């Protein structure tokens, strides 16, 4: 599932799909933590999943706010539209 999320992140150019792929990747890593914790009977895996849940919630809040700003500015969700920064 992590590989699927990574493929989705690399292939799609729509910011909404990129955020969804990031969600898939975070979820897959959480699944790995919980299954490892179940394998060895430790509670640490579930604690790590709680932290991953926190990170996902924070990430999706900021990411969707950025998405709204990108859409209001460029009227498109294409991430290539925002590649105008000159350094």
């Amino acid at each position, binding site marked *: *599932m992590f590989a*699927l*999320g990574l*493929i*989705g992140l690399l*292939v*799609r*150019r*729509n910011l*909404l*799909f990129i*955020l*969804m*792929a990031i*969600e*898939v990747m975070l*979820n897959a890593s959480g*699944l790995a933590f*919980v*299954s490892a*914790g*179940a*394998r060895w*009977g*430790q*509670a*640490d895996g*579930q*604690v790590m*999943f*709680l*932290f991953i*849940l*926190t*990170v*996902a*919630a*924070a*990430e*999706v*809040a*900021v990411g*969707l*706010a*950025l*998405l*709204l*700003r990108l*859409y*209001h*500015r*460029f*009227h*498109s*969700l*294409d991430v*290539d*539209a925002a590649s*105008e920064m*000159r350094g």
Partner: protein
Amino acid sequence: MEAIFYIAAIVAVLATVLTVTRLNPVHALLYLTVSLLAVAVVFYTLGAPFMAALEVVIYAGAIMVLFVFVVMLLNLGRHTVEIERSWLSPGAFVGPAILAAILVGEVSYLLARSGTLTPPVAEVSPHQVALSLYGPYLLGVELASFLLLGALVGAYHVGSRRAQGRTTVGSRSDRTGLASGGDLVRTGADRPSGAA
């Protein structure tokens, strides 16, 4: 119990594949919700019932609601009615409904046979998780609260209307975007090449 685990895992992988490959964002959101629910069933079969509940409440509940809000917020243009009609076509709901029906069947089987089934792995109870969370991981909890506060303030600042007046008016892509009309599913195919 093991069969339920494998069926839920297959449903999760299938729904994730369909999430990544859909072109319509609402279809992808439906499949992503089904994928998260399937992962919740997997958590339950792995002996983590509290994490399964959190997965449903926070991931499939709160985060998916945020996604749906944003998708609906972006579609305030003239095409809204046609887009809405195409989304409400029955074909869009068949796939997620079948996958969700499989999960409902599994959960009802688990509820009917509760107590008689033995989990394949030892259950890690929420009590142990709480003792570990507020024992050795107390610093992590504080850091998580800092992270959530930072995300709250950051999302408010980025999304606030007041900061919107500072954007440069009349930049090139701004004009082209306005001319062609905003559309959620358009991925910039008609934007001029070499805009930079």
